[in-house]
């Protein structure tokens, strides 16, 4: 097995008591103190995440916009410098290669942020599809660290460290700016459902930046948060995670991501015909979010049965909502299946369908 990769903040994380896990080939902080506590801190105050494992792919050149529009399901043509877009990138059969975020830095300059565990696969796929387009695709993953500052106190904390007017930065927008002396791409994005920022910076700047953010955040109750809290926060918000709610065999339409699939955009996109057919026929199975009213966590992989006891699906994500104090999760379930339940160590537990988010989230604007 190859050695696990480490982020530029590995030593910093170690000093701050992180516990590490192997996440997609990366030795990542899963928690610093307590996953449940870090989760609540992000909902109530603010949390700082090292997400430098995420992949960054740069697409530049005269055809960059046209190529990305062909590559992904959402409408890239409507992007302008400073605008950010969430999308799926599909196979011809509609299955998902990855979900990603596109940061438009200039009319011919895009940064695409992809899942860490998919980076190599994505770069190969993107390069393959780019043939015939006048654009340059570069894997810049080693050139960026990424810090996510998330939670209601984020703006106040970040504003103390930059002269850039954060009030002017709307949700899903980005701008170049200097934070605590470090040149960053500052983005109003995140994976927690809270208001917050993601800061792309040079690897060498990551540690001084994290130190400055922690210091500025101290009066606001900022704490470091790990991937454990990141996962429960995203699930409470109802955001998909690749390999769980979306995958090579679960299309964006099945995952409830129809809003990022622009079937009618003029240039079309890879996977459009398959997705259009699936839309017309109706999805055979779909992702259902659920709560249980019980504290027992329903783990991914647990079979889901209907009222007659027939297996009609499988749990894809499951955790304890630290806010609701009950188990929440998602399952891929056959369309039309009625009442759903799972067996946990001999006890039948009913799944109560929920339209996410599971908890009230702040408005995004």
């Amino acid at each position, binding site marked *: 097995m190859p050695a696990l990769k480490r982020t530029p903040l590995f030593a910093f994380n170690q000093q701050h008591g992180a516990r590490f896990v192997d996440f997609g080939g990366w030795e990542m902080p899963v928690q610093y103190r307590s996953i*449940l506590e870090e989760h609540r801190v992000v909902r109530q105050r603010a949390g700082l995440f090292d997400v430098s494992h995420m992949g960054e792919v740069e697409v530049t050149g005269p055809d960059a916009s046209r190529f990305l529009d062909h590559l992904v399901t959402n409408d890239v043509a409507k992007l302008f410098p400073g605008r950010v877009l969430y999308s799926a990138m599909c196979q011809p059969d509609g299955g998902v290669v990855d979900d990603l975020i596109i940061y438009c830095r200039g009319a011919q300059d895009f940064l695409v942020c992809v899942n860490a565990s998919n980076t190599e696969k994505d770069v190969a796929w993107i390069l393959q599809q780019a043939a015939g387009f006048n654009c340059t695709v570069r894997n810049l993953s080693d050139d960026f660290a990424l810090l996510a500052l998330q939670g209601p106190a984020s703006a106040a904390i970040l504003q103390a460290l930059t002269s850039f007017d954060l009030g002017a930065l709307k949700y899903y927008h980005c701008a170049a700016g200097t934070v605590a002396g470090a040149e960053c791409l500052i983005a109003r994005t995140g994976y927690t459902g809270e208001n917050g920022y993601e800061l792309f910076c040079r690897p060498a700047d990551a540690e001084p930046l994290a130190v400055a953010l922690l210091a500025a955040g101290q009066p606001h109750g900022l704490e470091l948060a790990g991937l454990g809290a990141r996962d429960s926060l995203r699930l409470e918000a109802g955001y998909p995670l690749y390999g769980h709610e979306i995958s090579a065999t679960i299309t964006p339409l099945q995952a409830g991501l129809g809003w990022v699939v622009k079937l009618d955009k003029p240039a079309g996109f890879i996977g459009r015909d398959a997705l259009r057919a699936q839309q017309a026929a109706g999805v055979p199975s779909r992702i259902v979010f659920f709560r249980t009213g019980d*504290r027992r*966590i329903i783990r991914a992989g647990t079979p889901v049965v209907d009222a007659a006891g027939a297996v009609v699906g499988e749990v894809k994500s499951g955790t304890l909502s630290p806010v609701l104090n009950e188990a929440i999760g998602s399952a891929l379930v056959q369309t039309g299946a009625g009442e759903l339940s799972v067996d946990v160590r001999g006890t039948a537990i009913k799944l109560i369908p929920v339209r996410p988010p599971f908890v009230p989230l702040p408005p995004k604007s």
Partner: protein
Amino acid sequence: MPVPSDCKYAKSHEWAKRLPDGAVLVGITDYAQHSLGDITYVQLPQVGAVLAAGESFGVVESVKAASDLYAPVAGTVVEVNEALNAAPETVNTDPQGGGWMLKLQPADLAGLDALLSADAYQTLIG
């Protein structure tokens, strides 16, 4: 990590403490709770259940995983810690105090003697 010397220990990371009335209090060690992380649920047997030494008596669940709990000694369950239903995190904060799980009436006293001393358990967890 604290390993109180008034308890005996199982290799599976449960502790057993002899009470003045002859009963034995059972829970998991500080090392165990730390390895598990945030504990979210504790499933315990009914009062009256008869357990063999080493028999699974319940499950402790953390955000990460569910793990079986094993009886360090044979005996009959005379009380379970009902407070853990509402506050399982007590196992994290006070594993060898308020986070106790079972009170057993031991089948015999030889069972306790077979367990590890605090020193031996400390050596085991390094």
